């Protein structure tokens, strides 16, 4: 079985690596962009990458607990998005900006 075959025989490894890649993109989104909204979206990306990993292992183990956990993660992500957006709105109201580079009131 050569490398190509391995590449095309879809299994657990593929999904995990995909999750990893999405997670990495999320991280880079958080620290490379200056807009708070993009940062929030990147966080959603990372959460989804985690979910993908959970579901992959659930599929591999035939275990529903992974899916249940992923469900909880979605709920948490929803709460996080609500609060995060509220904060962004509040920030914008006060500072007229969502620019993370300018939010330096508490910064040394």
């Amino acid at each position, binding site marked *: 079985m050569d490398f190509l075959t391995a590449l095309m025989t879809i299994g657990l490894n593929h999904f995990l690596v995909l999750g990893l890649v999405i997670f990495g993109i999320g*991280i880079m989104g958080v*620290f490379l962009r200056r807009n708070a909204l993009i940062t929030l979206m990147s966080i959603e990306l990372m959460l989804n990458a985690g979910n993908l990993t959970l579901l992959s292992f659930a599929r591999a183990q035939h275990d529903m607990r992974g899916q249940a956990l992923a469900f909880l993660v979605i709920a948490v992500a929803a709460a996080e998005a609500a609060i995060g957006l509220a904060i962004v709105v509040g920030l914008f109201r006060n500072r007229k900006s969502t620019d993370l580079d300018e939010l330096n009131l508490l*910064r040394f």
Partner: protein
Amino acid sequence: MTQNYPLYLIALLPFLGAALNLLFGRRLGNGIVSLIACGAVAGAALVATKAVWILGHDLPTKGMLVDQFFEKDWITAGDLHVAAGLMLDRLSAVMVLIVTWIALLIHIYATGYMEHEPDYARFFGYLNLFTGSMLILVLGDSLPVTFVGWEGVGLCSYLLIGFWYQEDKNATAGRKAFIVNRVGDFGFLLGICLLWTLLGTVKYAEMGSLLNELRRPFWMGWPAGYWVAVFLFIGCMGKSAQIPLYVWLPDAMAGPTPVSALIHAATMVTAGVYVVARTHGIFDITPSAAQMLVSGIGAITALMAATIGIVQRDFKKVLAYSTVSQLGFMFVGVGSGAYVAGIMHLMTHAFFKAGLFLGAGSVMHAMGGEGDITKMGGLGKHMPITRWTFFVYCLAIAGIFPFAGFFSKDAILAGAFASKFVMADTANPTQQMLINLYPKFLWGTLTLAAFCTAFYMWRLYFMVFTGTFRGTHEQEHHLHESPPEMTLPLVVLAVGAVLSGLIGVPAVMSHGLPESVQHFTGFFEHWLVPAIVPASPEPHGHALEWGLMAGATIISIAGIGLAASLYRGGISKAAENVKNSLQPVYALLWNKYFVDELYDLVLVRPLKMLARVLWRVADAVIVDGGLTKVGPALVGWFGTRTRRLQNGDVQRYLIAVVLGAAAVLFLSTFWLPYRGVQGSITKEGRRVNLVLGEGKVPNNRLVYRIDWDGDGKFDEENVRHAEKGFFHDYQNAGTFRIVVEAHDPDWHVGKSSADWILGARKPLSVTVE
């Protein structure tokens, strides 16, 4: 032979009186206060007399009355037991009688003298407290118990000197007395400690049999006993005002005059003499360095204080220096082995010096508190009782036959003259000569001091009681004889000053008298010798003894004559002329040899300065600064540098997390092969064993390629590390470079020992023969 007797009553009665007067005295009237005070002391005196009677009558010479007033020991700590015990033997009997009866007289005197004092009760409370403490001092059966009284009288002295505390001067004088005495107590305390260390007991009765222990050499070539004696004597110097700790006594005259009479003349200041006599076994130990020290200090103090006394103008100052001087006499007595003479002088001195002070009090009472003798004169006609009793005291202190001072002083002079000091190294002729001359030196110094004594006492007498009055009219108008409660003690003491010497007449004088009379005239000696203290040294030959007596008397009369010629009928022109012609000497004496100034310069000021420097510099800057500034400064320095990492930039935090994760991954995966290419080589002939990873790399984790001969081609490929490592048998001798490549198949990281970046700590190579 001991007998139990409730001796505690003697000390307890005055204490009770003190407690009553101090706690409730302000509510009681003066009459009740004086009744309590005098009654307590009178009770103590009666109990004491009864006890002494029992002691003298029922018990043998060495017998003593004892009393353990607590059931348990006073202090118990490990092997240290200090009993709260009192004892009355013939030596303490003398002291107890002196203390109680003279205290009683002075209490009575004080009821008159302090009549108008608002703090009447407090005064008598202190006075009773003092009497009780003094009795503890003389009755204590061990050094610590004595020390309790010793400190107690020090406290009372402090309180009474500063009795009129509203004046800072008095308070300062009291403090000075206490602190100087504390310096002495430092020595006393160390003496007690050293004695206990050496003997394991501090009880007088148990000490005698152990004294041989003290003969062992201890420190700086001197025997242990010498050091005990020196330490104890430092205490005595403080309490009995000897050089160099005498400075407090003249200042102590700031207290009320009865206090000066009781504490600073008759009783407390003689405690040092008592302690030396009490512990004479320690001072007697040969070589007699301790004795030489005691008598030498005493002689020099006697002369120095007497010379200062010559020029003083304050009535009580003159008497104070006289006291210091007389205490010096006593120390020469006890220091040269003439204990009987020393103790007897203590007794006679208690009579006449208490009387002198009370007389001074009487005079100052009449003068409205004025103490400057240049402002007095001609008082004799206004206050005859005071004058004539004072006359008797002056004769007694000058040592005129047959007054008490004659016998006691003469005994001291004779004892000093005849004393023998023994030193360890007698081979040195110069030293031996000096030692032989030492008694003569003592005698000479004392004789000179006696001359001065006679002179200044009679100068005082003439200036005060004869001539014409030199004070203001108002004062002259006010002059009167003192009330009977003041004159009565004066008369009683005067009788004592005349008669008390008669129980200590030298044998050479009583020779040939009837047996019963001899028994009386030698009573004092028989009372103390030989059971309590050793016999005094006596000059060889009656002629010499008579000669010494005559010499002393002539000297005294010469002093009186000189005083009379200069001061009879007021301060004569001649006296002024002498003063002017000897101006530098006068200034020196007038300023008391500048000793106070010297102490101030050498001790007090440096100490104050040191205290300030320690506080402001050592404590505030170095110690406190060191701990509270340097530590926080380090933390602050670290914090200001590291808080940049915690700057609140979340993006940066995330980068830090990612970088950290990457670093952990990088280092952990890289480290393993790196360790894996390090190894140790052992040889067995031509077989070379190679252990890689040094136990830090898990077996079977890495795969290796090994080039054993350094030719660039790997001899072994894809091998794993076994328990014992690798081995290779070389075919021929030589030095070979070994190259190892470690590979982590999981993380796909490889490392070679030839790698220039991460080479092994030392290149692997082997030399085989």
